């Protein structure tokens, strides 16, 4: 498989300003030297707790924020040096579906207009062709053609998320960023949407950047998983390797906390002490060391390097 998106050393720092003059008083290292690739037609799952930088990473990929450092290559092309037309092309090829379909759809627009909007902006299409494309997209997400004439409030949460997916697919993107696409939906509806997303990937060959805190869902959907902690990736590799035999102590704790419903799966309970430290003032050395059950003296002073171990990459002094 060839790489679609290659992210290298991606970094985003935010200045914290205080007072009337806006003096810089601190630096939040929201994303700190993050690297990953997403293959054509594959899914990268990103997991981590709130504040770990998942959403900032997705914003950087979507071009909604400019990175402080690092490169993003899309189809071999450096995205950060693209001119206006190049950037326009990139933004067409990379679309997003957000968590809350109640917030992401304009309540005063009909569903047909919502889905057609990207076409109006980006494609020179006459009204008939546009209507045909909207019906095609509705069919793709298993909604009836008459849905085009209705308003978002006439749909349930799951159906709304289908509309949001149809809109994201309108311009035939090559990468879709899915930021918690099922978290806001009812349990009985989640499987429908996850199945739909997988079917669409098989049919259209689209790649996904899948961000979620439901670890089992991420493991189910992804080909590769990246685990983030305080702005850094601590473990990254094939989904099965990371989910079933996690190596980094944080990944182990995270997947132990995911609470399987199978009674007979032998899983140790690892409960981490303490809370996630502030990204304003991350711990020295390995950022996870104050909470790590295996912490050694060198963890407090020396930042671990990302290196291969057991078929994946881990940033931990244990390996």
């Amino acid at each position, binding site marked *: 498989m060839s790489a679609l998106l290659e992210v290298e050393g991606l970094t985003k720092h935010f200045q914290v300003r205080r007072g009337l003059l806006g003096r810089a008083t601190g630096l939040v290292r929201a994303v700190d030297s993050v690297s990953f690739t997403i293959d054509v037609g594959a899914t990268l799952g990103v997991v981590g707790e709130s504040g770990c930088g998942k959403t900032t990473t997705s914003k950087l990929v979507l071009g909604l924020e400019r990175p402080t450092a690092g490169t993003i290559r899309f189809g071999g092309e450096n995205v950060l040096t693209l001119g206006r037309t190049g950037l326009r092309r990139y933004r067409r090829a990379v679309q997003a579906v957000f968590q809350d379909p109640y917030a992401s759809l304009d309540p005063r627009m009909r569903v047909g207009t919502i889905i057609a909007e990207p076409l109006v902006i980006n494609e020179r299409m006459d009204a008939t062709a546009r209507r045909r494309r909207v019906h095609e997209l509705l069919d793709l997400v298993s909604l009836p053609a008459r849905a085009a004439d209705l308003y978002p409030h006439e749909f349930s949460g799951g159906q709304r998320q289908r509309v949001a997916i149809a809109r994201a697919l309108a311009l035939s993107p090559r990468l879709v960023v899915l930021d918690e696409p099922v978290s806001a939906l009812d349990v*009985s509806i989640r499987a429908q949407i996850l199945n739909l997303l997988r079917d669409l990937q098989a049919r259209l060959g689209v790649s996904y950047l899948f961000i979620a805190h439901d670890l089992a869902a991420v493991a189910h959907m992804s080909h590769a998983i990246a685990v983030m902690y305080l702005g850094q990736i601590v473990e990254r590799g094939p989904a099965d390797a990371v989910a079933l035999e996690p190596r980094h102590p944080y990944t182990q704790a995270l997947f132990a906390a995911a609470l399987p419903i199978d009674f007979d799966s032998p899983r140790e309970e690892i409960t981490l002490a303490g*809370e996630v430290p502030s990204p304003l003032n991350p711990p020295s050395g390995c950022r996870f060391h104050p909470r790590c059950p295996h912490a050694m003296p060198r963890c407090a002073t020396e930042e671990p390097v990302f290196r291969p171990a057991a078929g994946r990459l881990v940033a931990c002094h244990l390996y």
Partner: protein
Amino acid sequence: MPPPVVDVRDLRTHIVTRWGTVKAVDGVSFALAEGETLGLVGESGSGKSMTCLSLVRLVPRPAARILGGQVMLDGDDLLARSEREMQAIRGRQIAMILQDPMSSLNPVFSIGMQMREPVALYHRLRGRALTARAAELLAAVRIPSPRERLCAFPHQLSGGMRQRVVGAMAIAAPPRLLIADEPTTSLDLTIQSQYLGLLRELQRQHRFALIFVTHNLGIVARMCDRVAVMYAGRIVEMGPVRRLFTRPAHPYTRALLDSIPRLGARRERLTAIEGQPPDLSRLPAGCAFAPRCPSVMERCRVEAPPETVVEAGHVTRCWLETPTSGGAPA
């Protein structure tokens, strides 16, 4: 068997709306013993939260009204109590922990002010002894340096800490029944794991009965002794957690368990539940799950199934399990 702490019988709470009457809680019955945990699961609108609010008689009035049934707490029917008597019961005998700690805490008062209020009321303490007891409670929920925290305001604490403070207030009495309505939904995974451990420890100490409302079946597996699955205002299946998860009797429970992605069991497709959750003001005649049920029969669409005992302690509402019915799926 010891007498139950809580015994709810045929509880019915209806909400009158412009579009019709919603039977939010429609004949719910269950009992809980001391130190026992009942998981209440179901999707939004299934009546989980409304059942909990009915127990403490805090349903949003005038739209919602408790129409019938009994809520027995240690043999005493709460539905027959006056509003004044209820005020003395809430917090002291039945405590609640809700999903969002920020909405349970007052942002303009310090933690100490808010902690002292219930403690003073329940234990008639004042002054230094009161502060000491409040700090003790914070220490019991493992908040570091509790005395300093008493001076802090809710916004200065993290989400996990805030939920601990709410927990500390809940056990101030300590109560006979604790109702936890999605207490960890707003917390991060590793923090959630800590909090669940804490709740179990507090329960071991104080022996309260615990009703745990959640839609996360993994939490139910870890926390609960028994589980009640709600659908459209009714308990469609109830029994010991292990039994229900390994041999579910109701098609909805089975479908719910099948639709959840599991670690390790990598399948190409999940078994999705077709259709949408029901519109409660326009429920079908018969079984509410019938329109989405894979094993629906003629009879399901006409007549609501009665509660049937599958095995001692395991009940369900499904025609498939009713001894007299039988017959092939339509």
